[in-house]
């Protein structure tokens, strides 16, 4: 292992992480809801008039973020997405992520940020599991294939 100093962005990544923590903490303190993208989407699969509005407005804010970022943030603070995966890999990955996050009851936000912040052992196990296969998968596609 060697560190990729060229792409290492400790300051903007920490800053971005702090914003994620603020949003997650504030959503729970204000609305009593866990900020988990998988869980928020899941609730919309069976919509109800009482439960759906907060999910929809939260998602609208999330979807508005690239436009707002373009208007208010300096361009060098934003990372353009580099996607190595081909179309077939993108589709397989999407299916695995959709099925897997529902099966495991959460993703990087619900288990990763909120779960670890709540000191949940269950979420720690989930986080170690998906990070584990994440490491293995990237090793396979970048170094074995």
């Amino acid at each position, binding site marked *: 292992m060697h560190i990729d100093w060229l792409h290492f962005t400790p300051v903007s990544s920490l800053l*971005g992480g702090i914003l994620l923590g603020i*949003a*997650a*903490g504030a959503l729970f303190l204000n609305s009593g809801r866990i900020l988990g993208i998988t869980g928020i989407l899941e609730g919309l699969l069976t919509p109800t008039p009482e439960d759906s509005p907060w999910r929809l407005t939260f998602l609208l804010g999330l979807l508005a973020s690239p436009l707002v970022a373009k208007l208010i943030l300096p361009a060098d603070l934003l990372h353009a997405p*580099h996607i190595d995966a081909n179309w077939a890999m993108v589709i397989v990955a999407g299916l695995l*992520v*959709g*099925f*897997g996050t529902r099966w495991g009851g959460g993703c990087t936000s619900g288990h990763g940020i909120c779960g670890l912040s709540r000191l949940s052992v269950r979420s720690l196990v989930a986080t170690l599991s998906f990070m584990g296969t994440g490491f293995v998968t990237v*090793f396979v596609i970048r170094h074995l294939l």
Partner: protein
Amino acid sequence: MQRVIEFLLGLTFGLGLLISGMTDPGKVQGFLDLAGAWDPSLAFVMGGGVLVGLLGFGVAKKKIISFSGALFHWPKVTQIDRPLVLGSLMFGMGWGLAGFCPGPALVTMASGNDKALVFVLAMLVGMVLFDRFKKRDN
């Protein structure tokens, strides 16, 4: 008013993802690539998020009701079971394969990226498929 707050928190979360580098699959895979040139940045994303989150959830633990008056929806399930582990292992495979997890995929889709759009559609199909399987099992 609540709708405005939720919108702003979704926006804050999205901006956090954009600034942190989570919306760049290449950066995510750079973090997951321990054997290559390793980019530790995402550890700082997680570190910053959890550090602030500890504070927020710590305050919530001492409160009975949320600021909006709604009850706190503390997750009730605590057991570590097969679905948790197998589902998370499966999620990690997809995460590593394309470098997208659900939140960043939605944000990148909204920025007009066609591969992120296809990823999100496949992800929604995966979620619905899971529900079908679950219904059949019950």
